[in-house]
């Protein structure tokens, strides 16, 4: 199960995730991202502080979101990964294509 807490911080939409971003949890995130991007949101921060598990299904959704916001000058940034989660991002090569920061605040400002 994944819980997604949404907040607006300045121009950015911040999604704080809690739980498992696996095959089940990624469906909820995908639906929410598609909806917000369709509404015109371009700056997205996905905070992983509360995430204890991610699989390729979760990565697929993040990649989809990042690709969708990029053409209009938007960006999807990551924050707050614990070590085991960070390693999955590292091995996937996603840290080369998605900006990652220690905190939500840095992710909002770090461009």
């Amino acid at each position, binding site marked *: 199960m994944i819980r997604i807490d949404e907040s607006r911080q300045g121009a950015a939409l911040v999604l704080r995730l809690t739980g498992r971003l696996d095959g089940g949890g990624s469906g909820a995130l995908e639906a929410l991202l598609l909806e917000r991007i369709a509404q015109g949101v371009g700056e997205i921060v996905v905070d992983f502080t509360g995430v204890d598990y991610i*699989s*390729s*299904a979760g*990565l697929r959704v993040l990649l989809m979101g990042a690709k969708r916001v990029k053409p209009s000058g938007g960006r999807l940034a990551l924050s707050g990964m614990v070590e085991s989660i960070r390693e999955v991002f590292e*091995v*996937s090569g996603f840290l080369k294509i998605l900006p990652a920061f220690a905190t939500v605040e840095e992710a909002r400002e770090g461009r």
Partner: protein
Amino acid sequence: MEERLEQARYVLLNDLEEIPQLAERVEAFGVRHAVSSKVIFNLNLALDEILTNVISYGYPDHLPHHISVTLMWRPEGMTAEVEDDGLPFNPLADAAPPQVDVSLEERSVGGLGIHFVKTFMDEVSYCREGERNRLRLWKRLEGSGREAAHDPN
């Protein structure tokens, strides 16, 4: 004093919702044997990627099937063996590794799950036995000093 289980077998249905439940059991099994949370995480990730493939693509008949997952603990490493009666699926023969050095626009996630399995496990072996796939994952346990290929038996 609690007896330390060396082996545990779980039987799952071909339903993706079984995967997080298996993950809890793998974690409990690992904790019981003082396996690090990192190894448990990596083993669960590999099992998730394999089982997601089997469940999503292995059963075109859309009927209920059983998948067996056997965990074995030894001081030098943990083994997880997955047996299913789905379509032949050899993750070792499957697909080129994902391109991890391309731009965001060119990037896809194809092959990422199997890439995780190969990267996070120390040994992966596969065989097709009759109508069954049998996949064995092995993860070395820190401090065991074991480097060579292991004999599972």
